């Protein structure tokens, strides 16, 4: 009983931290709520899709920004896409970087864009680590016969 309580407590605290620090927002809660018996791995699927999307877009943006003549419209459309998927998934920090990123695209500011790209990379890595930790906790809770605390 003790270890289960501990794990659940850890999970609750960690989740609260993720929301508090703005790593995830309500849309992530929605994704979690959409998971059910007919799609028990829904959250992991969505999260995996997101990181695939993100990495692909980051590569495209990096390539576009390396060009002699940067096509800012192209970069902007990638940012727009990333903004959309990060928003749907509830990856709040990444979404917020995208908002700033868009401004730099519109201003055709290469340096600003590159800084934002770096930030996206950084946030992406952090989020991945955090969500992996979250999923690990979930698995441990279930393995110990418990149920995962749900955010209201």
């Amino acid at each position, binding site marked *: 009983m003790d270890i289960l309580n501990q794990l659940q407590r850890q999970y609750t605290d960690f989740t609260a931290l993720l929301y508090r620090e703005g790593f995830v927002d*309500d849309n992530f809660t*929605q994704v979690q709520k959409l998971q059910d018996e007919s799609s028990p791995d829904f959250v992991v699927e969505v999260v995996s899709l997101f990181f695939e999307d993100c990495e692909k877009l980051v590569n495209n943006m990096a390539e576009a920004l390396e060009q002699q003549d940067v096509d800012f419209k192209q970069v902007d459309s990638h940012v727009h896409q990333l903004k*959309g998927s990060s928003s*749907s998934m509830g990856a709040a920090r990444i979404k917020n970087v995208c908002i700033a990123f868009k401004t730099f695209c519109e201003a055709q500011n290469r340096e600003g864009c590159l800084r934002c790209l770096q930030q996206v990379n950084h946030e992406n890595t952090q989020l991945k680590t955090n969500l992996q930790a979250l999923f690990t906790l979930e698995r441990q809770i279930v393995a110990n016969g418990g149920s*995962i605390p*749900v*955010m*209201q």
Partner: protein
Amino acid sequence: MTLVLRFQIRLSYGRATFAPRTSSEQPRSIPQFRGLRVILADDDALNRTVTKKLLEKLGCEVTAVSSGFECLSALSSAENSVRLVVLDIQMPEMDGFEVATRIRKVRSRSWPLIIAVTASAEDNVWERCLQMGMNGMIRKPVLLQGMADELQRVLQRVGEGL
């Protein structure tokens, strides 16, 4: 005569309390949406996955496609049974407006119903949607309550014969 249309996009903010998962956690499918056949068109895999699941949670039967072309072909092969098309406006190649225009060329204004999904915050998007013969609009990110509300509103208007 001017039509004044108001629609609310409600944002739901979570309250940070915790409770053990119970069976009442799952949102129940709403009777009028149960079995509603929907075609969902969105070129982004993640958005498509989330919106599809959301619609299924509401009880709909969803066919998800990734382009305007696929949407039109799915619609023509499904014949009469598709009641609603949920359409991302910003798709490459053929955008949502074009798809709606083509649908309305062959079908009536009330069938299938078309709901646009847009990331745009511009005011005139709704006007444009109306002009293209769309019945509803929802802004991204798509939330369960927002979709349920807009679906209900759109279905009700049809019922009123408007």
